[in-house]
């Protein structure tokens, strides 16, 4: 009977047993690029970018989001290489992370509209968490939480 080594979730969790930098790079390089572009455009937006024509500004603002489907594709390929148990746990954790991110960003937005952050820190007009960097960080945190919840029952 032929055997093959399936992908395991720990391969992209730094510090965990079985972590592989090569796999992490293969799976998450598009996300890293999206975060870089998002950070760069966020840094330049207040200055030079605002002077550009609206078509350019739109392209710069949307470019990280256009890269995200490529990242999603590499994640899907990685998950497909897992065995059935890990695929189930990871899919549940990803769904949990997406839902939690959506809920968190929505909640944050409503608090901002209500003037919560302005009341908290007078003079501050609120914190923008709609960037790819913030959302990626939230996603990673919620994925970690979801993974530990769904993995626990199979240990």
């Amino acid at each position, binding site marked *: *009977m032929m*055997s093959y080594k399936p992908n395991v979730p720990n391969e992209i969790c730094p510090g965990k047993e079985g972590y592989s930098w090569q796999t992490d790079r293969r799976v998450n390089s598009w996300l890293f690029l999206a975060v870089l572009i998002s950070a760069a455009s966020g840094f330049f937006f207040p200055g030079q970018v605002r002077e550009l024509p609206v078509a350019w500004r739109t392209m710069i603002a949307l470019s990280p989001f256009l890269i995200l489907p490529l990242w999603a594709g590499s994640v899907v390929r990685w998950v497909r290489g897992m*065995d*059935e*148990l*890990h695929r189930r746990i990871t899919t549940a954790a990803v769904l949990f992370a997406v839902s939690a991110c959506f809920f968190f960003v929505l909640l944050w937005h409503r608090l901002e509209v209500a003037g919560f952050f302005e009341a908290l820190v007078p003079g501050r007009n609120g914190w923008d968490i709609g960037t790819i960097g913030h959302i990626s960080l939230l996603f990673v945190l919620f994925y970690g939480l979801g993974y530990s919840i769904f993995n626990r*029952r199979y240990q």
Partner: protein
Amino acid sequence: MKNRLRELRTAKEWSQSDLAEILGVSRQTVNAIETGKYHPSLPLAFKVARLFGRAIEQIFEDQEE
């Protein structure tokens, strides 16, 4: 659902890692099946049955019966 996977595996003197490698799954999956925490899919159950040369129902037992 009960199963005889641990019994069959130890009879062959295989570790969980050995069996996992043969089946193409992780050691955690073999452990979760043996302890009854995870019920394998039909393709995996057939693979296990073929490996040990037995029918599925001789390895996996439905407790509702």
